[in-house]
Structure formats: structure tokens, C-alpha cells
């Protein structure tokens, strides 16, 4: 069969990935630099029988997709920094109620209105801790348009597998860049469908009774099982509870279901890492400059390598720790003030050997920016 090869923008690839994964319901609100996702879906979804709605704000968009997901459909919304901030309460609600859903945050400069059209990766910690309370979360990212497609499919798969909200933490550069993308044929990549309960009509269904394998089969709103969903601490019926044991078990379940599988959820790529003395760790668009610098140094015989993280949360600590073992230095490359660098320092045996190459001024970090720091830590001067 002829491969479906196309030249497209990152935001288009996100749409294609979502549709490949079975997106049926999208609610959004315009915001730079994610608006194209909303525009494209307003055209495509009604054509294929899906639902598109432009809501009155990002809060409403996030709430609408949770409501729609409960009726049994795959759902998504997309936004950027300020909109992502507005969504935080509802993101916590999706985590607490365990409603599969996907949120795209195409990061831009912040805080506040910041730099709407500039590249940044400053929302890494907000993705992790933006909503209040103890919880765990999945956040994926990508450094090129093809991977933006693949990670979007993966986001939907993880959302269904773990019955949770998944964040796609892209950045402006990947979202607006155009590259070649090969769209896989249907069936070529696994698509995880919703796990529905086998409890028959007339028998009690417990929406929050965790199965032995840690999963919770769902029942669609409008179906034969009528149950309650609440953002309050709830028992297996989904009914509010103030019992300490119920709260303890629920919070543990929400955290453990992801944190205990952090390294299984982990997605990453490696370049020249086998014999690397200096290991670069990067993600998103900044991994492109990191790779360029690594390839350039390799030509000169310098033993550097790159670990590109494609999943940021839950942080793949064990993977990162192992990959950093035996290196003389670790250099984290990111476009913020060290949000992932701090996580790397937490897991490695020699945090004093971890350095940060970064920019946070809206200018894309260049290979030269990274090289300057590499030279400095190798004692070669600036």
C-alpha cells in the first residue's frame, strides 16, 4: 500500500494523531500558538460525524470534554500557557474522577501573557503540579512533527489504559514547524479502546472499584449503569466520603497507578549514548539543537551523547539515573530556568556533575549556546 506521506505543521500532526487514535469530541478556545488545532478540527470533526464546539473559555472547554468522555467518547482540548492555567482546576477534577482525556498545551513564553508567539518550555512544572493536591500525571512531548503525531496517539492510549488525563506538552516551535510526516495505515500502530465493564444490567456496578490489575472498567453515561461521579473524595460507588481510610486509599491509588509504572510509561530516544562521557538530556524542540551539537562534536571525536525524553511525567527517574551512570558530566538542555534539570539532579548519584544549558528569553536555544556551556564544563573556556 502507498505510504501516506505528507508535509505538515506540528499542530496538524497533533490533529492527525488524535484522529488516528479515535478522537470524537473536541472543545477548544482560540489561543496562540495552538489555535490551528481548533481551526482544523472545526472543519474535520463535523465531516466525520464527530463533535466540535468552541466554548466560551478554556475552563469550559476542559469541563466539556470531561462530560463528553463520560458518555464513552475519546476527547481532547488544546491550549497554551494562560489557557492551561485556567484549566488547572478541571484537570485535577479529571485526575480525581479518573476520566480519560487529553489536553494539548503548546507552550509559549510566560508567565502572564508572556511571549505569545515565542518558543518556551516553562510549563513543565505546571503540568506536574499545576492543579492542587497530591496526584500524579502523565505528560508527553516531542521534538519533531512525526513524533508529535506518534506521541498524540500514545497520549490517547495511556489515557484509556490508566483511566486518566494525559497532557501533551509541546512547544511553539514543534507546533508551528513544517516537516515530512508518514501517517501510518489504520492498525499499524496500536490504538487502545476504552475498557468497559462486563457487569450485566441489574447487577451493581462500582465505577471506582479497582480491579486486581489496577484498572477500572467504565460504563458510559446513558448506558444501563447509573452511577455518581464527584470531584470529592469518593468511595467505590462514586459517592462522597470523608472517611480517612477511603481518602488514604484513593489518593494512594491515584498516585501509585502512574508512579509505580513510571519507567514502563517512559518514552525516550538515545543518540550516541553508549560510550558518551558527557550526556546531554533534552526534550521537545530544544532536543533538536542538542542533537545537532552532539553530531557536530562526534565528527571531531568528542564523546558526547543525547538522551531525548519524550515522557516528562511521571519522571522516568530510574531510566535517567541508569543512563547518567559513569558519565563525567550531564548537561540538561531546556528552555526554562531548569525545571527538568532539578529532577535529574534528584535522581543521579552525583548531582554536582549536572549542568544546565538553557534560554528563557523567547529565542530558540542554538547548538552554539549549548556548546559554550560544554566547553566551559570541560575547562576549554568560553
Amino acid at each position: 500500500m502507498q505510504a501516506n506521506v505528507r508535509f505538515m505543521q506540528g499542530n496538524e500532526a497533533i490533529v492527525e494523531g488524535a484522529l488516528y487514535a479515535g478522537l470524537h469530541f473536541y472543545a477548544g478556545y482560540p489561543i496562540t500558538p495552538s489555535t490551528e488545532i481548533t481551526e482544523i478540527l472545526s472543519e474535520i470533526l463535523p465531516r466525520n460525524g464527530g463533535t466540535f464546539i468552541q466554548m466560551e473559555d478554556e475552563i469550559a472547554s476542559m469541563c466539556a470534554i470531561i462530560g463528553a468522555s463520560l458518555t464513552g467518547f475519546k476527547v481532547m482540548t488544546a491550549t497554551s500557557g494562560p489557557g492551561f492555567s485556567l484549566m488547572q482546576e478541571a484537570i485535577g477534577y479529571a485526575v480525581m474522577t479518573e476520566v480519560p482525556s487529553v489536553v494539548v498545551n503548546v507552550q509559549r513564553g510566560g508567565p502572564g501573557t508572556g511571549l505569545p508567539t515565542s518558543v518556551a518550555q516553562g510549563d513543565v512544572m505546571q503540568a506536574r503540579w499545576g492543579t492542587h493536591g497530591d496526584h500524579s500525571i502523565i505528560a508527553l512531548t516531542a521534538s519533531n512533527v512525526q513524533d508529535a503525531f506518534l506521541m498524540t496517539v500514545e497520549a490517547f492510549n495511556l489515557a484509556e489504559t490508566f483511566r486518566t488525563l494525559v497532557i501533551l506538552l509541546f512547544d511553539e516551535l514543534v507546533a508551528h514547524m513544517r516537516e515530512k510526516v508518514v501517517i501510518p495505515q489504520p492498525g499499524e500502530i496500536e490504538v487502545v479502546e476504552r475498557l468497559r465493564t462486563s457487569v450485566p444490567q441489574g447487577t451493581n456496578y462500582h465505577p471506582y472499584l479497582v480491579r486486581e490489575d489496577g484498572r477500572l472498567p467504565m460504563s458510559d453515561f446513558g448506558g444501563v449503569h447509573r452511577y455518581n461521579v464527584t470531584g470529592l473524595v469518593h468511595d467505590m460507588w462514586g459517592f462522597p466520603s470523608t472517611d480517612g481510610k477511603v481518602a488514604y486509599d484513593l489518593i494512594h491509588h491515584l498516585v501509585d497507578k502512574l508512579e509505580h509504572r513510571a519507567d514502563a510509561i517512559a518514552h525516550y530516544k538515545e543518540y550516541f549514548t553508549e560510550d558518551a562521557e558527557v550526556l546531554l538530556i533534552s526534550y521537545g524542540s530544544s532536543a533538536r539543537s542538542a542533537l545537532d551539537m552532539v553530531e557536530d562534536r562526534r565528527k571531531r571525536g568528542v564523546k558526547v551523547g543525547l538522551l531525548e525524553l519524550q515522557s516528562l511525567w511521571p519522571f522516568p527517574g530510574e531510566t535517567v539515573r541508569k543512563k547518567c551512570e559513569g558519565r563525567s558530566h550531564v548537561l540538561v538542555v531546556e528552555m526554562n530556568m531548569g525545571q527538568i534539570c532539578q529532577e535529574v539532579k534528584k535522581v543521579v548519584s552525583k548531582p554536582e556533575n549536572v549542568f544546565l544549558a538553557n534560554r528563557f528569553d523567547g529565542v530558540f536555544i542554538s547548538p552554539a549556546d549549548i556548546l559554550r556551556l560544554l566547553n566551559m564544563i570541560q575547562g576549554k573556556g568560553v
Partner: protein
Amino acid sequence: MAAKDYLRQRFFPQIWCPGCGHGIVMANMIRAIERLRLKKDEIVVVSGIGCSSRMPGYLDFHTLHTLHGRALAFATGVKMARPELTVIAPMGDGDALAIGGNHLIHASRRNIDLTAIIMNNSIYGMTGGQYSPMTPFGKRTTTAPSGTIEHSFDLVELARGAGASFVARTTTYHAKEMIKIIAKAIKHKGFAVVEVMSQCPTYYGRKNKLGSAVDMMKRYKEGTAPIGSKKKAEHPDLIERGVFVEQRRPEYSKSYLELIDRYVTS
């Protein structure tokens, strides 16, 4: 079916204070649903946060207890995903008109087929009696100890102005009228807003020396009059009850399905 067949008695007793009006609203909503012969599986009840928003948990429908102010945003998602379902949103006045005011006007503007039952007790009950956008000027609350200097919304005029195609007002005293109005609102194809004046003797009543729940309900009897009635003509200060707006206008989820049809046939 008996009213109890619509309840999840496992979760009783409910949390409302003695004398609270919300139980009356819940009972009358059930009676309206029974009158319409709707199947329990076809009904989704979506609420936000507050005293009245605890209602869905006690009801044997598909029930969704969401975030403060966001009931209509969640309900919009449910309705647009499954337009064949009947979606009802019981809300409080603070929930619907302060934090949720934006969603209320936009649901009205879209004319999406949801039924918003707004229990107006003129106060935030769950947090202990602060003034709401429905607290009348001069009334006392825990955040307006010498009387509020803010003016309240006229919910009927607000909903009408925003484009709701069904707007009504009733009170907990007028039980039979309430059943009729709620049934009409649910049956209506479009966004329906029903304001139900519902007493809060614990906070609003106590702060403003309005007496017992029964005293407060008597005030609803004496202080209101049917729309266009002789009583209203004789006493212009009375609050009007009844159906203010009942229009046929394009409904949003239906318009969306028509949009899909246009694409499919073109």
C-alpha cells in the same frame, strides 16, 4: 413509580439543614420527571458545588457532581456528545450566577437543550452565609454584616436577555406550580432556566430575622403573584411567578446535527 424509586436511599440521610427548601425542589423535580414518563437511563443530572449541587448524588440517574460554577460547561459536553439524553442541571444562585455566570449566558445564547434549575436562596449556604449575586440590596450576610451595598441580578431578565428560550420563576411554597413548570422546562427543546426561590432559614433567614422555614415560605406566598395577575396589578412590588419566556428557536445540538448532515450530503 413512587418518588422513592428515583432516589438512591443508600446515601440518605441527605446533608441539607432542617427547613431547607432544596428537598422540596428535588421532590418536585422527580415528580416532573415521572409526569413526563422519562426513563432513568435517559437522564443525566449535572451539578456544580454548593448545597443545592449535592442533589444529584441522591438521585438514581446518571449523575455528575462537578466544579463550582461549571455544571453547564460539563452538561454542554454531555449533551453535545449524546444529544438524545435529557440533561438537567440543578444549581445554586452563587454557583449559577457568580462563578458560573459566564457559562449561564453562553448556554442561553447557544440555546442548547439543557434545563437549568436554579435554586435561589439569596446566599452561599455551604460556606456559611456570604452574600451572593441574588442577595437583595441591604440584606445582611456574614460578608455584609451591615447589609450588602451590591445590587442583585434579576435572573429572569438576565436569562431572557442572554437568549434563553424558556424562562420561568416559581417558589418552594408553590409546589404544584413548580412541578408543572419544571416538567415544561424539561420538555422544552432549548435552553430552559427555572428560578426556584428556595428558603435558607439557617443563614439567610437567621441573619435577616425572617423567622422559621414556614415563615419564609409564607413570605413566598405573600410576596409573589402570577404573571399578569390582578394581585400583581394591585401590588406592583410583588415578584412575578410563572413562565416568562417560551419560544421556539433553533436548538444548538440539533443545529449541529444538521451541520453534520449538510457535510454528509454535500
